[in-house]
C-alpha cells in the first residue's frame, strides 16, 4: 500500500497498538474514494498451486480399504499398539510396523466443534459438526477427524458412541469422504 503521508498524524504508536481509546482512533482514515480512485497503490497477485501426492503404502492401503467399506490399521509389536490411520513405521519405537489389522467402523467422539456459518460467514441451513473419532479396535486415543450427522447439536457429547455412515459402494473413490459422516450408534 503506498501513501506517503498515511502515518503522519498517527500520534503515539503505543496508544494505537494498545487501542486504549478506540472511539478516537489515531492516524489518518482512508476514504472510500481513495481506495476506488486507486490513489492507494496495491500490487495484487493470484496464483494456483497444484499437487498430486503419492499415497505410498500406508495411506494407499487405508484408502483402498475405505473404498471396500473397511477401516484398517497397522500393528506394532514393539509397543503393542494398533495405529489408525496406519503407518509403515512406529513413531514411538522407530521400527517398521508389522501387520494389517481390520478395525471396526465404530468409535467414540474424542472432541468436537460446531459451526453455524460457512467460511464466507454466510449462515448454514444445518450446523456443521466436526469431530475427532477414536476408532474401536485401534489403540486408545487413535482415530481421525470426520463429520457427525443424523444428530442434533445439543445431543453431541464427548464420549458419544458413533458408527460410520458409508457412501454407497459405487460412489466410493478411495478417499476419507467415502465415509459420509459418523452418526450416533446408540439411542440418545
Amino acid at each position, binding site marked *: 500500500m503506498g501513501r506517503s503521508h498515511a502515518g503522519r498524524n498517527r500520534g503515539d504508536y503505543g496508544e494505537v497498538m494498545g487501542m486504549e481509546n478506540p472511539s478516537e482512533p489515531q492516524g489518518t482514515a482512508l476514504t472510500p474514494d481513495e481506495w476506488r480512485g486507486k490513489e492507494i497503490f496495491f*500490487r495484487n*497477485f493470484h*496464483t*494456483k*498451486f*497444484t*499437487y*498430486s*501426492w*503419492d*499415497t*505410498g*503404502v*500406508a*495411506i494407499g492401503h487405508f484408502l483402498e480399504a475405505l473404498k471396500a467399506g473397511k477401516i484398517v490399521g497397522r500393528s506394532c509389536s514393539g509397543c503393542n499398539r494398533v495405529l489408525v490411520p496406519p*503407518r*509403515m*513405521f512406529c*513413531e*514411538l*519405537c*522407530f521400527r517398521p510396523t508389522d501387520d494389517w489389522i481390520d478395525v471396526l467402523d465404530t468409535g467414540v467422539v474424542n472432541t468436537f466443534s460446531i459451526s453455524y456459518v460457512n467460511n464466507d460467514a454466510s449462515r448454514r441451513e444445518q450446523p456443521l459438526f466436526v469431530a475427532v473419532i477414536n476408532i474401536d479396535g485401534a489403540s486408545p486415543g487413535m482415530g481421525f477427524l470426520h463429520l457427525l450427522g443424523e444428530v442434533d447439536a445439543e445431543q453431541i457429547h464427548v464420549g458419544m458412541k458413533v458408527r460410520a455412515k458409508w457412501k454407497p459402494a459405487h460412489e466410493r473413490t478411495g478417499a476419507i469422504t467415502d465415509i459420509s459422516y459418523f452418526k450416533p450408534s446408540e439411542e440418545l
Partner: protein
Amino acid sequence: MINKAGIEQYLYASFGPELKFGRWLIVSKAFTDKLVGDIGALLLDDQVAIVGIGYSGFSPATPSQSYKELIFDAASRAYAECSVNPRKDVGSFVCCEEDLWEGTSITDEYAPDQLGAAQRTLCTLSQDGLNGVATAYMHIKSGVASIAVVESHSKLSNVLSQSQVREFALEPYYERPILSDGIPVAAMQMRRFMHDYKVAEEDIAQVVSKNKKNGLFNQRSSYAADVSVEQAMRSPFVWNPLRRIQVAPPADGCVVAVLASAEKARSMTEQPVWIKGIGWNSASTSAESAVSSEALYAKEAAKMAYKIAGVDSPGSYFDFAEVDDTYAFKELQHAEALGIADMGVSKGNTQADAPVPINMSGGSLSLGDLVEAMGLVRLLEAVQRLRNAERKRSKGLKRALVQSWRGIPSSSGAVAVLGVE
C-alpha cells in the same frame, strides 16, 4: 571442555596430588610434550564428524512411497550405519524443507515421526540441507547435543506447479508483473557471466558432457548419459542462452546424515568424515542484484568455511569438489567463487583429471534437482567418495569441498570442508 579447572584436573590425574602450580614447578621435556600432545588431542576432540549417512529415492518419481516412508527408509539406513537409536541417543534433529515444495504450511509439524523425533528436540529450517548441517554442527559445538541428525528430501514429482512455485519466489512488485517463472533469471545470469568471463558455449557444453558422463559411474544418477560436447550444444533453448540439457531435471529422494562430537564419533564408526569447516551466506536477492557475474554468496560462505578449516589455497588443498550445477554455467561460476578454478574460469577445473575434479558424482545434471535436499545430496556424494578411498575413482581422496546454492532467484548458499584425516 578446556578451562582452568579442566587442566588442573588433568595435571592432578596425571601427576598426583603433590603437584602444585608454583614458581618451583620444573617440568621435563617429556612432560611438556605429553601436555602439548594431550591438549592437542583435546582440541581435536572439539571437532564434529559425519558418522552415518543414508538415502532413499533418487528417481524422477517415487510413487510407491509417501514422503514419510521415503524419509523413514533413509533415516533407518543412516542410523544403522552408526548404530544410533534416534529415540534415545540423538540430541538434536534438523529438517530442511520448504512449505511450497511440500504443499503444506508449517510442514515441520509433520517432520518428527518418520525420523524417530516425536516428542524430541527438532527444528526445521526453510533452507538447503547444508545449512542444516551447519546448524547441527553448531548444536554439537555448543554442547547442546553430542549427536545430531539432519534430514532433507524432495518430492518434486508431486509438485505439478513447479513453475508457479518458482514464480512465487520472484520479487512481487517489480519482477512478477514482468516474469512468470524463475528460469529466465538463470538465463540472464548465464549471459552476464559468459560476457564478463569470456566463457564460450563450448565451455558450458563441456560441463554438461563431463557431468552426464560422470553420472554413468553413479548408481544414484537418474539422468546420466553418454553426451558429447557437440550433442550438448545442439540441445534446444529453454530461455536463450540457457539450453534444456543445461538445466538439472527434477528428482525425488531423501538424505539423512548423522553428526557426532569427536568423542562419540570414534566409537560410532571406523570412518568418521570430519567437518573441518563450514560457512553460509546470503548476499542480496532481486533479479537486479542477482544478475551479477560473481557468485558472492559462494565466495563469502567459502571464506567462512576456509577460515575455520585453515584452508589458505583451496586450489591445492582439495582433492575433489561437489559444487552446485543446477544450471551448467553455475558450476563454472561457483568454481571461480570457491577459488578452485585456478586456470581461469573458461578453462576451469572441470575435467575429471583436473587438480580439483568437480562433480565426479555427476552433479545435479546427472542426479537431478532435489531442491532443498541438494546440499545433503552433494554431502552424501563427498562422504561416500572419502570413505571409498581404495576404489579406483576415489583413490587417495582425503579432502573434499561441498557447496550448495538455494536456487533461482536466491543468492544464498553454504560451503563445507570435509576431511578424513
